């Protein structure tokens, strides 16, 4: 076929995957029994399976993917629905009340949310490509919001707040890359901003004034402007109602994010121990496998959600910068591929992948040092998990395909 593998992409993926395996190996080296024992080997197996999956995707044209997108999307929704209606169960170490795993006859088959994420990206890209112009009105945004919103609602029902945020990340990435005006995006997120600012009446009041001015300047349709303003008002007032509707473990996570010391023995424990592990790493860390917080079992979920705390403790600031640098390089390469893609469909898909991965990285890494609340979503290449590893592999297969198509089509950016 004459396509070449994207060499920089290959190098950065290999580097991240190796780093991830090395950290998982260390995660298993503890003085107290944990479930992390030997996960690095299982992760290697998943990596091998992922390689096959990526190779298959790499051989698949984007046309076929575009055709298959609705089917994959519907399948993803159905599987998510199954987890919600009784075929779901909690994962190891996660809250028992959740049901993110598709479980049939007691056998946990996988996390459908990972399929739903990639299917949603494919579906959104298909919807945008079918339009000649990007939507310029809020009403025009309703279909893509529905495409991302339905799976998001289903995972919220599991309940899995973290994954729901990932769908929001995917949606905004694709909207942005499809060319939706930034002002429209801002108006779209304005109710969320209103919700977040509702804790301070003064700030919220300022925001409402600013929003009013923005609506005057950008001049959307009148009924849309009124709708947005009403939505903002309602969010500000509904904050308490929304709070009351949250599951207790979600409330606890948000409260402990705001003040972990007050929740030292409960959900605050995780964030404190994670920060202690990372902080004690210093410049160069305590050395491979020598992290004492990890060894003694003080870091919760140190092979899944909090695996980055092991990086921070054992490899220090230098190791953290290396990992974040690799991620950033990966994102820059993916942006480059999206920009040079031979057709808009591939371009949007790849940028959707950027949105997906970035949301995961920022949320997961951010929560380990209390920049983000704890939501329990995995870190690409590092966290142990089969379904998620397959998702990453598929996404990378898409990236290689898109990169190869761009090269083989002779499209070169001047």
């Amino acid at each position, binding site marked *: 076929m004459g396509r070449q593998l994207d060499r920089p992409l290959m190098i950065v993926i290999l580097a991240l995957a190796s780093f991830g395996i090395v950290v998982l190996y260390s995660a298993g080296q503890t*003085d*107290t029994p944990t479930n992390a024992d030997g996960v690095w080997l299982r992760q290697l197996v998943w990596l091998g399976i992922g390689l096959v999956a990526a190779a298959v995707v790499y051989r698949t044209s984007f046309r076929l993917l575009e055709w298959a997108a609705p089917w994959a999307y519907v399948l993803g929704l159905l599987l998510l629905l199954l987890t919600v209606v009784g075929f779901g169960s909690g994962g190891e170490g996660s809250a028992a009340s959740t049901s993110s795993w598709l479980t049939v006859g007691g056998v946990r088959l996988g996390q459908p949310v990972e399929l739903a994420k990639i299917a949603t990206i494919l579906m959104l890209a298909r919807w945008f490509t079918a339009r*000649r*112009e*990007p939507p310029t009105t809020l009403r025009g945004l309703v279909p893509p919001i529905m495409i991302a919103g339905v799976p998001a609602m289903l995972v919220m029902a599991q309940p899995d707040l973290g994954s729901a945020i990932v769908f929001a990340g995917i949606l905004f990435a694709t909207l*942005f*890359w*499809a*060319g939706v005006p930034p002002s429209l995006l801002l108006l779209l997120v304005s109710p969320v901003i209103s919700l977040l600012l509702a804790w301070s009446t003064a700030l919220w009041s300022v925001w409402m004034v600013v929003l009013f001015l923005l609506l005057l300047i950008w001049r959307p349709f009148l009924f849309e402007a009124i709708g947005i303003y009403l939505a903002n008002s309602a969010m500000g007032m509904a904050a308490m109602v929304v709070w009351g509707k949250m599951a207790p473990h979600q409330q606890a996570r948000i409260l402990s994010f705001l003040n972990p010391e007050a929740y030292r023995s409960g959900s605050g424990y995780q964030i404190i*121990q994670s*920060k*202690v*592990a*990372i*902080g*004690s*790493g*210093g*410049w160069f860390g305590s050395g491979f496998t020598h992290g*004492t*917080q990890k*060894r*003694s*079992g*003080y870091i919760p979920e140190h092979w899944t959600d909090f695996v980055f705390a092991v990086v*921070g403790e054992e490899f*220090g*600031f230098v190791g*953290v*910068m290396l990992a*974040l640098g690799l*991620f*950033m390089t990966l*994102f*820059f390469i993916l*942006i*480059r591929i*999206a*920009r040079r893609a031979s057709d*808009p469909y591939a*371009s949007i898909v790849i*940028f959707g992948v*950027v949105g997906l991965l*970035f949301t995961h990285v*920022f949320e997961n*890494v*951010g929560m380990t*040092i*209390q*920049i983000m609340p704890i939501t329990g979503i995995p870190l690409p290449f590092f966290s142990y998990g089969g379904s998620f590893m397959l998702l990453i592999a598929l996404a990378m297969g898409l990236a290689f395909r898109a990169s190869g198509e761009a090269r083989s089509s002779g499209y070169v*950016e001047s």
Partner: protein
Amino acid sequence: MSAFGSWELARRSSAARWTLLLAFAVLGGGFFRAQILQSAQYRLTSANNRMRAIPISAPRGEIVDRNGLLIAENFPGYSVRLMASREDSLRAVVARLDSLIPSDSIDADAVIARWRSARHIPALVFGSSDFAVVATLEEHRAVLPGLVVQAEPRRRYPGGATVGHLVGYVSEVNPAELEDQLKFPGASMGDIVGKLGLEVEYDSILRGQNGVQFVEVTARGHMVREQGIDRTIRPVAGRTITTTIDLPLQRFVDSMWQADLPGMRGALLAMRPNGEILAYYSTPAYDPNDWVGGISTANFRALTSNPDKPLINRVISGRYPPASPFKLAVAAMGLKRGLITSTTRMAVPCTGAYQFGNRRFRCWKRDGGHGSLDLTGAIATSCDVYFYQLGLMLGEEAIFEDGTAMGFNSRSDIDLDPALEQRSVFPSSLKSYVNSRGVNWWSRGEILNLSIGQGNNAQTLVNMTAFYAALAGDGVKRAPYLVRPRPGAAEHDLGLTPAQLQSLRDAMAAVVNTGTAGRSGGRELRMAGKTGTGQVTGQEDMAWFLGFAPVEASEIIVGMLVEEGLHGSWIAPHVARTIRRWILGPDNPAVRAPVDLPITEELVPLDSAPPPPDTVIAPPPVIGIN
């Protein structure tokens, strides 16, 4: 699709890259703050998280006798402690531990209390010398999170009950003792400290300084490794104290007592004229080994409910009417004041009683009396009538003044816990007598009672023996000591000339040669001494004998008392045997000779005076054990 024109794409890529850069800068800043700026603080938290300081007990100093024989030693034992982060988990582990070693009853509440008082250090569960117990626990370590088993030297007293009242015992310090900063300076919760006897008096020397060992523990409280030796603070061993005790003599006294006076309550104190104590014996006693590592409830109940009160240290804590041995004090007062000499006779010869006013004070020898006696004869025969008249010659103020000067109303200041030594009782003045007992009790007849060691007079064995040591030596009453004289201890000069002292010693030699202790077997030892029989209303008589030898240059002074209705002359032979054992050594056949049984009787005239109900002095006080 204009949205995917190359200029549009370049603009959006640029915006996306800047957004990413910003987001990663936020993350990087967060890590820089945590890992670089606040790293020291987090490192400390991390260390505190998993490091536990476990005290390493300092070996306690040994206690040896004058020849280096062991009175208190250490032997290998184990302490079992638990670390815990929460009370309920500690309780669960204690319960599990209890079920693993059924023979030991573990006081869960005491463990919890120890843990509460110092949560960061492992709480002591129990101490054991049984390796099998420790092995069982080690086997089950997996289900006993936070288990710390340490080698810990344990106290042992080879002499057992023989030295019980002498050494006291050791036990874990209690919170009340810790509150008093001066009592056990530097001690902290869980430390083993001395209780009673030499162990508490010399605790600061014996205790040493505990070390600290750091161990790393997991989130569940399992110990994972010990830190390197460089992090360990070595304990400083306590120092050995050498006592003046002669352990073979102490053992001899015990075996003699158990053979000849089985089950009888009493005490014996042997000392040298300079104050060194050779034997310190009180019976019944407790076995100090029973207290090490915590006394069992059954044992403790047996000790406290025993009517013979084995917890009372009868050398320093029991007060008794001194009776006839006090006549030497009255004689010394007369000599010192120049009222009499050794040859002075009293106006009224002894006819078995003395008429004072309308009351008749009897002599112990009722049938015919002693006749006319000089001082030497009166001491030898312990004639009450002679001392009635000497007392009247002195008058109450002189008796009170001289008695005080001779230390009869103070402590002996022996180097044992002053809180345990009872202050002897003797009026310091007529005013104090009246103040303490009420004016109605005073009559000149009371002088007669005081003259023969009855009345408001209660002495400890140690105080009386110290007085006799002064008579046997240079006339200065000094504080007896077991290790070294108590700093600042009072000295009481009897105020007698060497000739006067010699005359009193000659009289006491006559007691042994021809008098009330005539068949004690002390004659060939050139022993001198004085018998006595004290009366306490409502109780059996108690016997005294205080003796020393050889009379011209004493090497040893022995004071002995028995509570059990015996008379002084009955116990004089035991004092003689003790002295013989010391002077002739253990190998002399005479030491093993059986005790001659007694002879002469000496009884205080029961009907001599209508003794006021509380001439009964101070019933032997009950001391607490802590």
